[in-house]
C-alpha cells in the first residue's frame, strides 16, 4: 500500500477525493478498466484499489495492491506477484492513462468520475447512520478542516478538469508525505527490490516531508443540541465528547480504557444501560476518534425515547467523568482492549491504519506493541482522563422534533 497525505482544506479536498477514482480507471500500460481487470485476473484475482479517506485534519490518498502470498499457488516465481503489484501501484500514481492529444489525465474519465462523485456527494444521507455521525462531527467541528466531508464539496466539481487534476497529482507526488507498506511473508531481498521500485515516486527529500499534525478539537463554549428532520423509521442519536487527548498525550492509553468503560464493548455502560436494561436501542456504543481527541456516542432509538436515552447517556458519561467505576469493570475493559490490540497483528489492514493514525498524530513510529501501554495504565490515570471529558454536541436525526430538543440545523435541502 502506498499512501500520500495532505492537509484537509476546502480548496483541495474534492480533488483529493476525485483523483484516486480517476487513477483507478487506467494506467499507461493498462489504459482502461477492462484491460486492468483482465491483467488482475491473470494475477490470480489480485486486487488493485485506489481511494482516499479522512484521518483527523489530514486527507490520505492510497493505492493498494493485494494478492495471494508468494508460494501459495505453487508458482515457480512467487515473488513475481509482489513485484508486479508494486509496479502497478507505482504506475497508477506516477503514470496514468492519457490520450495522445491531451496534456492532462483522460478527459472522458475525469468527466465520468465527476458525475459519479457528484451523485455520491448528493447521496451521503442515504446511509442514515454514517450521515448522522458525519453531521454530529460537522456541527461539533465547525470551522475546523475536520468538518469537511471526505468526498469533498459538490460546488468544487465544475472547476476540476483533466488538466488541473493532473497538476494536483504531480504536486502531491512532489510534496506530500509518502508512506509505503509491504506486508506478508517476504524475504529481505524482495523488500529491497520493492523499495527500489518505489524510488520513482517522490524523488529526493521524501523522507523529510511532514504535515502539521491534526489539531485536537478545542473545548466547547457550551453544550450544543441539534435536531435535523428526515423521513426515518428509526431516529439516530449521536453525542460528541471533547477530550483534547490525542495519541501523543501521555493519557492516551487511559482514553482508550475510559472509552472502553463507556461504550467500546458489550460489557460497557452504554450497551448495558441503554440496550440490555431498558431495551431502548439495538446498538449503543462509543468510539474514540484518536487524532481529534473526540469520542462519538451512537444509538438508534424511537423519537419518543429521545429524552430518556439522552438522559441515560449523559448520566453514564457524568458518572465515568467523576471516576465512578469498579476495579472489576476496569480489568474487564483492559482485557478486551488488549485483546483488540493483539488481534490487529493478524490483520494487515488494521496494522496499516493503526500505524498511519499514530504517524499522523506525530507519534514515534517504533512502538509496535501498543497493548503494553494499556497493561500499565492505572485506575488513577483513567480517572484523570475522565476529568477532561466535556459534553460537546448532541445531534438527533429524527422524524419529528422531540419536546426539548435543540435548534433545528440549518438544513441543506439537497442532503435529506
Amino acid at each position: 500500500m502506498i499512501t500520500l497525505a495532505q492537509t484537509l482544506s476546502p480548496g483541495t479536498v474534492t480533488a483529493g477525493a476525485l483523483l484516486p477514482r480517476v487513477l483507478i480507471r487506467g494506467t499507461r500500460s493498462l489504459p482502461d478498466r477492462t484491460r486492468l481487470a483482465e491483467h488482475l485476473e491473470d494475477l490470480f484475482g489480485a486486487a488493485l484499489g485506489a481511494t482516499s479517506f479522512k484521518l483527523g485534519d489530514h486527507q490520505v490518498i492510497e493505492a493498494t495492491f493485494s494478492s495471494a502470498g508468494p508460494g501459495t499457488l505453487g508458482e515457480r516465481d512467487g515473488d513475481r506477484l509482489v513485484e508486479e503489484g508494486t509496479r502497478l501501484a507505482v504506475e497508477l500514481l506516477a503514470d496514468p492513462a492519457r490520450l495522445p492529444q491531451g496534456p492532462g489525465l483522460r478527459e472522458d474519465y475525469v468527466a465520468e468520475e465527476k458525475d459519479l462523485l457528484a451523485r455520491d456527494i448528493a447521496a451521503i444521507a442515504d446511509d442514515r447512520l454514517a450521515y448522522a455521525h458525519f453531521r454530529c462531527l460537522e456541527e461539533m467541528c465547525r470551522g475546523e478542516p475536520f468538518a469537511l466531508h471526505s468526498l469533498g464539496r459538490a460546488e468544487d466539481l465544475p472547476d476540476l478538469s483533466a488538466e488541473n487534476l493532473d497538476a494536483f497529482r504531480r504536486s502531491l507526488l512532489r510534496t506530500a508525505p509518502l508512506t509505503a507498506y509491504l506486508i506478508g511473508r517476504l524475504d529481505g531481498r524482495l523488500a529491497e527490490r520493492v523499495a527500489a521500485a518505489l524510488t520513482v515516486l517522490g524523488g529526493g527529500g521524501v523522507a523529510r516531508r511532514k504535515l502539521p499534525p491534526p489539531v485536537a478539537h478545542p473545548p466547547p463554549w457550551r453544550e450544543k443540541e441539534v435536531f435535523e428532520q428526515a423521513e426515518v423509521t428509526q431516529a439516530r442519536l449521536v453525542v460528541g465528547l471533547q477530550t483534547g487527548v490525542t495519541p501523543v498525550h501521555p493519557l492516551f492509553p487511559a482514553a482508550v480504557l475510559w472509552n472502553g468503560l463507556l461504550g467500546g464493548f458489550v460489557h460497557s455502560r452504554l450497551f448495558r444501560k441503554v440496550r440490555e436494561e431498558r431495551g431502548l436501542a439495538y446498538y449503543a456504543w462509543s468510539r474514540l476518534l484518536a487524532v481529534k481527541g473526540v469520542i462519538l456516542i451512537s444509538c438508534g432509538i424511537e423519537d419518543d425515547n429521545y429524552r430518556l436515552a439522552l438522559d441515560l447517556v449523559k448520566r453514564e458519561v457524568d458518572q465515568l467523568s467523576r471516576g465512578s467505576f469498579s476495579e472489576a469493570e476496569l480489568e474487564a475493559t483492559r482485557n478486551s482492549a488488549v485483546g483488540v490490540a493483539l488481534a490487529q497483528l493478524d490483520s494487515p489492514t488494521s496494522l496499516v491504519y493503526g500505524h498511519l493514525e499514530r504517524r499522523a498524530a506525530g507519534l514515534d513510529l517504533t512502538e509496535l506493541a501498543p497493548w503494553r501501554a494499556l497493561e500499565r495504565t492505572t485506575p488513577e490515570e483513567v480517572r484523570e482522563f475522565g476529568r477532561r471529558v466535556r459534553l460537546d454536541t448532541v445531534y438527533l436525526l429524527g422524524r419529528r422534533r422531540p419536546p426539548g430538543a435543540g435548534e433545528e440545523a440549518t438544513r441543506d435541502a439537497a442532503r435529506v
Partner: protein
Amino acid sequence: MPPGFRPPPGWGRGLVAGGREGLRAEDFQRATIDGGLEAWVWRRRGFTNRHVVIATPFGAADRSFSLDGRVVSVPDGTAHFLEHLVFQTERGSALGTFSRLGVRANAFTSHTATAYYFSGTANFAAALRELVGLVLTARFRPETVESERRVIAQEIRMYEDDPGTRVHQALLEALYSSHPVRRRIAGTLESLADISPATLETCHEAFYHPSSLVLVAAGDLEPQRVFDLLSKEVTRLHPGRRAPKLGRLEPEEPPLPARHLARVDLPVKRPLFLVGFKDTPPPGADPWLLFRREMATNLLLEVLLGPASPLYDDLYRRGLVDETFSARYSTGPAFGHAVMGGATRDADEAAARVQEGIRRGRQKGISAKDLERKKRKARGQYVELADSLEGLATLFLLYRLKGVDLLGYPRLLEEVGLDEVDLVLQELFVPERTSVAVVAADRTGGLPEV
C-alpha cells in the same frame, strides 16, 4: 431432475488435498463429539488470534418443520429471536462475560443457519466452555424475552431505513411466491409480537441438540486438546438426551417468479436496482451438485458482468453502475437465485440494459479462454481465504451445514467445464425467470407496480 442438476459423467466427490496451496486439507481435523456434535479444528499456524464458530442449520427460512412426528409452524423472525436469547442468562447478557474474558462474541442468522462465535487471543478454554454452554442450554424467562423483543423491534426499524436491505428483500419477495426464503430474517414488527417463549423453547429443543450442531475452531490450536475440552463440556451439559426426529417440509414453489417488478419507495437520493434470475434446484438435491451449480453460475457471472466484461464497462461508462455493483449466486434448500445490481442514476434503464446485455451474451455464448481466466481468478481468491481466520472458519462451517466441504473447491473448479457453464447460461438466464427490484424516491406517490 432438471438439466444442470445431473452429475456430469466421470465426476466424483470428496475431500481433496490442496497440496502446495495456502489452504491445506491436512490442517483441518475432524472429530465427532458425544451427542453427535461435528467438530473441526483448522490449525492455522502463526496467527495470534483464535476464532470459534458453532452453528445450527436452523434459519429464517425454516418456518415449518416436523418434530417427533408433529408439524410445527413458527412466526417470521423466530430463528433470529432465538439467536438473541441464546446469549441471555439469569445473570444478564453473556456477551458481557465474553467481553470480560477479553474476547469478542457475536452471532448471526441467515435464511438457512444461525451461528454463534467468539474471537480472541486469551482465555480460549473458558470462552469455548461459555459458548458451548450457552448454545446447549438456553433459558427463556418471560421478562428477558420481553426485553429482547424491544431490542429486536429497534433492529427491524434500523433495517427499514437501509436501502440495501430493502432492495434485496423486495427482490426475494418478487422472485418467490411461497418459499420462506422470501421472509425477512428478523421478521416484521407484527410477526415479532407473535413469537412466544414456548415457540422459542420448541425450536431450541429441535435444532440445538448436539447432533444438529457443527463447530469450527481456527487458529494456532492443538486439535486434540480442543476436542477433549468439547467432549468434557458436552457430556457435562448434555448427558445422553436422545436426538429429536426432525423433518423438513419442502415448500411448494412454482419455477417462475411471483412478480417481474417490485418497487420500494424510500426517500433516497441515489436509486438502487437488482436483477434476479430464479433457479429451480429440486428438493433434496445432492448438496455437491448445488455447490457445483453455485460455482458454475458464479464463474458465468464473472464472464458476463465481472469487472473485465464489456457489459460492465458499458454500464459503468453510461453512469448506470458504480463500484457498488456486484453479481452473485446463492442457493439453499430448494431455492437458488443469481442476483446482480447496485447503486445507479436510473434504475429502470440500468435493469433494462443488464437484461439486454445478458440476452446478447446468451446468443453469443462464452469462450474457453474467458472461462479459464475466471477460474484462475477464483483459484487465487480461494487461496486468499486463508488470510482471514474468521472469514474462512465461517465459510467452511456454512458449507458443512449444507453438507459439502469447502476444501473440495479447487477440484470442482478444475472439473467445471464450458458445456456446464453454457448450460446455466441457456437455462437460467432467460427473461421468464427474471425479476427486477428498485428502491427509489417515488415523487408521484403512486402505488407499487406489480
